[in-house]
């Protein structure tokens, strides 16, 4: 099962991941950084297990990220 790993503290709030995969990503109105919906945080790493068919759009989000804080493993 693929997993998205997101280092949220490094996010610069550019909005690209939410454009690529809006079902998974949303901009926080509170701190201006992106939120990986339904993810779990551990030591600054936010993770979410996804289905195989959800990999593509999240990889697109990872590629679009200018500071490379999104990874699909």
């Amino acid at each position, binding site marked *: 099962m693929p997993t998205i790993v997101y280092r949220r503290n*490094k*996010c*610069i*709030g*550019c*909005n*690209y991941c939410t454009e690529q995969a809006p079902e998974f990503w949303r*901009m*926080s*109105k*509170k*701190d*201006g*950084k992106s939120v990986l919906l339904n993810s779990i945080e551990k030591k600054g790493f936010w993770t979410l297990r996804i289905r195989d068919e959800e990999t593509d759009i999240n990889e697109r989000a990872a*590629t*679009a*990220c*200018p*500071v490379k804080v999104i990874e699909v493993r």
Partner: protein
Amino acid sequence: MSPSIELLSPAGNFESLTAAVQGGADAVYFGVDQLNMRARATMNFTLQDLSAIAEQCHASNVRAYLTLNTIVYDHDLSLIKTILQQAKASCIDAVIAADQAVLAYASSIQMPVHISTQANISNIEAIKFYAHFADVMVLARELSLKQVKTICDEIQQQQIYGPSGRLVKIEVFAHGALCMAVSGKCYLSLHSHNASANRGACIQNCRHKYRVTDIEEDVELEIDNEYIMSSKDLKTIDFLDELIASGVSVLKIEGRGRSPEYVKTVTSCYHEAIDACAEGIFSEEKIFEWTNRLREVYNRDFWGGYYLGQKMGEWSNASGSKATTKKIYLGKGKHYYSKTQIAEFEIEAYQLHVGDRILVTGPTTGAVETTISSLHINDSGAAEFATKGDRCAFPLECAIRPSDKLYKIVNANQ
């Protein structure tokens, strides 16, 4: 009679902040979190640092300006309000802004605003427009000295006042990196790597080498320098008297991504130069000496920017720095014996010799340089050198802390 000039230095972290104060800055500027033009840098301050920054600056009679000058999206608005409220509560002196959302909210809470170079102010009508919001305005970096002077003269002539009731002050860039885009409004990094310079994520690919090929004719154009987009760094110290005479009030040094010793060296050179202008002792010999010192720290070679008119071919011809010196990490701080003014370090790499020129950096220490006059190692007495694993002690006038780093400064080609 020239009015007093404010020297504004960059602070990317506490090391550089302390170094700027040591160098003689009248004010410093810095960013917090992701909404600043150096968001990619890992060492940005956070909101929680604002009070400590203001306290440290004000204790040394230095003003503290917060940069909040990126492009702003709807999802940033709440963060902007939080940052501005926190800045106001922490007694930060002003915020440097370009987006209207930031100007409007800062004005609504009576937070003083300076207009960033990102707003690209290039004429007197723009000054009049922004005078509703700001007392200090940074001009576009592409104006000539004559254009800068015209704007300064017109502010006097037309009596253009800012919100404080005082005449609008003009700030210009005096030293540091320039880029090929108009006042930093660049799209190159966004085009090639989806990393917007205007959100502080520039990957600086303009500093790479490029080939220019005419695809229709399939010929590679002959260019004498492959760094066709990488500008040399701005240096105005050669004509600082003229720049000051144009009527500007604030001289800004670029470089929130630069090291503390860079900040200290550049700040102290310009501080001395401003004083020399005021005292009427600005001279060729001094310019020569300052230039040598400026060449020792990071630079892409220098030119006078656009102040003296457009010059062709002022492009860097190498990647990275052309600094004449480099620093080598030796070890970390251990203890400072304040009565005897002896600093103790542990050497973790290379060797330290008597006669070496050293640099100590740290958040409270800033950037301190000296030459080793004598050396003691491992409590076993005087020695000529200390090597990896040794604890060494030497006289140093300034106190050091356990978090401090010790470097040796050597010739760049060594």
